[in-house]
């Protein structure tokens, strides 16, 4: 009863001119989303994808097991010197991500435009 995730991958250009790799999630992000979240991240070449934007705009449901997958990505990205930024969270999940401390390791932006313009 857990939906499969579609993850859209896109190259975007920040205001600074730098490239950023955007991963757009949709549907449910839960314990069933390991491939979608960790798998999609791990499939990216670490050297050529230094900046990664995780976009949660299309996500309908997110639980603590899903957040744990995001933390796993942050952990691996931190080890390989990649920068992760996050956008598209609802005010509720912005609060939740802040509560669990994710903001220490990733900046949260309200939407894609806000993220791109300050990077």
């Amino acid at each position, binding site marked *: *009863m*857990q939906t499969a995730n579609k993850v859209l991958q896109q190259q975007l250009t920040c205001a600074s001119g730098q490239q950023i790799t955007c991963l757009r999630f949709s549907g449910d992000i839960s314990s069933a989303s390991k491939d979608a979240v960790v798998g999609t991240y791990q499939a990216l070449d670490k050297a050529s994808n230094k900046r990664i934007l995780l976009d949660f705009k299309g996500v309908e449901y997110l639980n*603590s097991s899903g957040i*744990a997958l995001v933390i796993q990505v942050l*952990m691996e990205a931190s080890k390989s010197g990649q920068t992760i930024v996050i956008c598209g969270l609802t005010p509720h999940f912005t609060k939740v991500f802040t509560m669990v401390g994710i903001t220490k390791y990733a900046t949260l932006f309200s939407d894609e435009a806000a993220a791109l313009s300050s990077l």
Partner: protein
Amino acid sequence: MSVTSGSKVEVRLPSRLGFEKVAMSTAAGMAKLMGFSDDRIEDLKTAVAEACINAMEHGNQMNASIPVSVILSMKPDELEVKVMDNGTGMQTPAPTPDIDRKMTGEEEARGMGMFLIQALVDEAEWVPSAGNDEQSFVRLVIRMNKESE
């Protein structure tokens, strides 16, 4: 609107991941009926989802045929939610996740459910099974005109 206290709604779900979303809908419907604000309803939905997932996983060992019961009770100015399972249960307080330790791998990435429940509702209490056929449960309360933090 006037809140009619003393009214109870019970919902029973199979212990199968995904069905916590049905409990979220029921809890949201009940909270809306009582006049809770949308942001309090979001808090409640996440807390109920986490409590149901824990009841399925840790309480009912993911045995789909054992139901998780969610009892929603309207009280004057508050909504109480009990999420009951057939396990032996847990005692308050919940572990606080340490993001730094999670980032170094000293702590598992998961293990934030109980923390979030406590952080999002006004009261959270875990009551272990009293033995015999008593169920273990977590009891959550959200109050009117209260912010979650």
